[in-house]
């Protein structure tokens, strides 16, 4: 069964992704994303009953450090990376 995403579905995903799309982009992404979703749907054939999820290849978890004062990184804030700064603040545009 072949899936073709509707224009509304594309707009919904775009909104969740915080993306504004032009009409041309909507058409383009409808085609290409539908094709890709159809391709990845081959995983439906696989029986995964009782199989655990797997997220990390090195089986490591909860890497903790001593709770002591230390400098995390040699990080230097470059004011020119932001619209505007004011001493220790980053100034942003008004959203109202």
């Amino acid at each position, binding site marked *: 069964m072949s899936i073709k995403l509707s224009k509304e579905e*594309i707009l919904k*995903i*775009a*909104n*969740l*992704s*915080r*993306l*504004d*799309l032009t009409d041309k*982009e909507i058409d*383009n*992404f409808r085609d*290409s*994303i539908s*094709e*890709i*979703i159809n*391709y*990845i*749907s*081959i*995983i*439906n054939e*696989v029986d*995964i009953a009782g*199989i*655990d*999820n*797997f*997220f*990390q*290849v*090195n089986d*490591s978890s909860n*890497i903790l*450090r001593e709770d002591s004062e230390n400098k*995390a*990184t*040699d*990080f*230097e*804030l*470059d004011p*020119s*990376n*932001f*619209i505007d700064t004011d001493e220790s603040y*980053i100034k*942003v*545009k*008004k*959203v*109202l």
Partner: protein
Amino acid sequence: MNIAELKKNIKDKKISPSEILDIYFKKAYVVNKDTNCFISITEDYTRKRLQNSKIESELSFIPGVIKDNINIKGTITTAGSRILENYKSPYTATVVEKLGNFSLIGKGNLDAFAFGSSTENSGFGVTKNPLDTSKVPGGSSGGVAAAVVSGVSLFGIGTDTGGSVRQPASFCGLVGLKPTYGLCSRFGLIAMGSSFDVPGIIATNVSDTALVLNSIAGFDKKDSTSINIEKKDYTKLKDDSKLKVGILKMPKDGVSTEIAKAFDDSVKLFSKLNIDLVEIDFKYISYSLAIYYILVPAEISANMSRYDGIRFGFHPDKNFESISDFYKDARSKFEDEVKRRVMIGTYTLSQGYYDAYYNKATQIRNLIKNEFKEVFKDIDFLISPTTPTLPFNIGEKTKDPLSMYLSDLFTVPANLVGYPAISIPNKKIDNLYSGLQIMGRPFEEDRLLSLSYLIENQLWK
């Protein structure tokens, strides 16, 4: 010229560090004009940095190129995207720190945020394959590979999430190594798929690759997925006897006849070397690409959420009525492929689809991991072609993203399971290069490189 030769010339004072910079920067501007391999050429930065510098590390003064999604303080790091066009790195990636005072020639072009297999998705123009400028150099580390094959750098550091080091290395006739996940720090790499990403090496031969790995490998507390294991000297060749090598059973379709033939020749070579060979038919490996293109876009959609117009890169310079409109305006700077992958990831993670796609893909990833563990109990290495086709034409696959994704067929499994894999150049076919991929057991890069050294010398006999 390779790294060992240049090192000797520096030591014997046949060439001075400033002469190296003069020669390589001069060449960099010319090569960049023809191929667009660099997003920035870092002459001012490097000359200043190496002033009064002495030989202090394995790679002192050796010219290198770093993919532009790796942070180096004092340079602009764009990740190949217009949204980070003027982003100044606030710190330096651990792998770059570890290289010491090498000569940074430039920051290599890439598909925006490393999303691609041809370097055509860059916000800063396509990189051409220096060996045939009508062809792509591969990707996403295409700029790095193009710079190394053009001789403007003797090595390069890229990133490999699904083949982005091995595939461009194969398209440019170079060696490309994707180390085991956790061997080399990811700190300072701009994240794509965090459970897949690793920094990798592109060089002209196996010995140089081993030398660079000696520098960049090692535990880093700044990367919580970094693994603390005993340090090895990768330049020391291991004499492995009684090797057993698995040959990946070729899929029914998708592999070109030229590649199938080149791979047959490699297999013959292994049998000539009296290496035990066995064909391996995985049950689940055929799902690798599908689960890769579910899990990686899912991780991408989360990782890309930080580009909000406030913290990094481009800032909309006007007032908006809603914060959502502000975000959307900033994110309009994303290239098409970035938007596409964020949307695929958002879709497969969204309500109603999470179980069918993301959740299920993590379970199949488990099946594949277990299958690899089982198979590698019996074999030491697994060989396959690096890519299913020869280098393709610029523009050939840009209209069809799925066909572009399929070019990662042989490279993604190593990232799904975190195993190390290397691509070694085959002899040219129709004047174009392809690669032989060898995959090894986790953290056995020393054995992988030793076998690669042996094969490299045989392949070119």
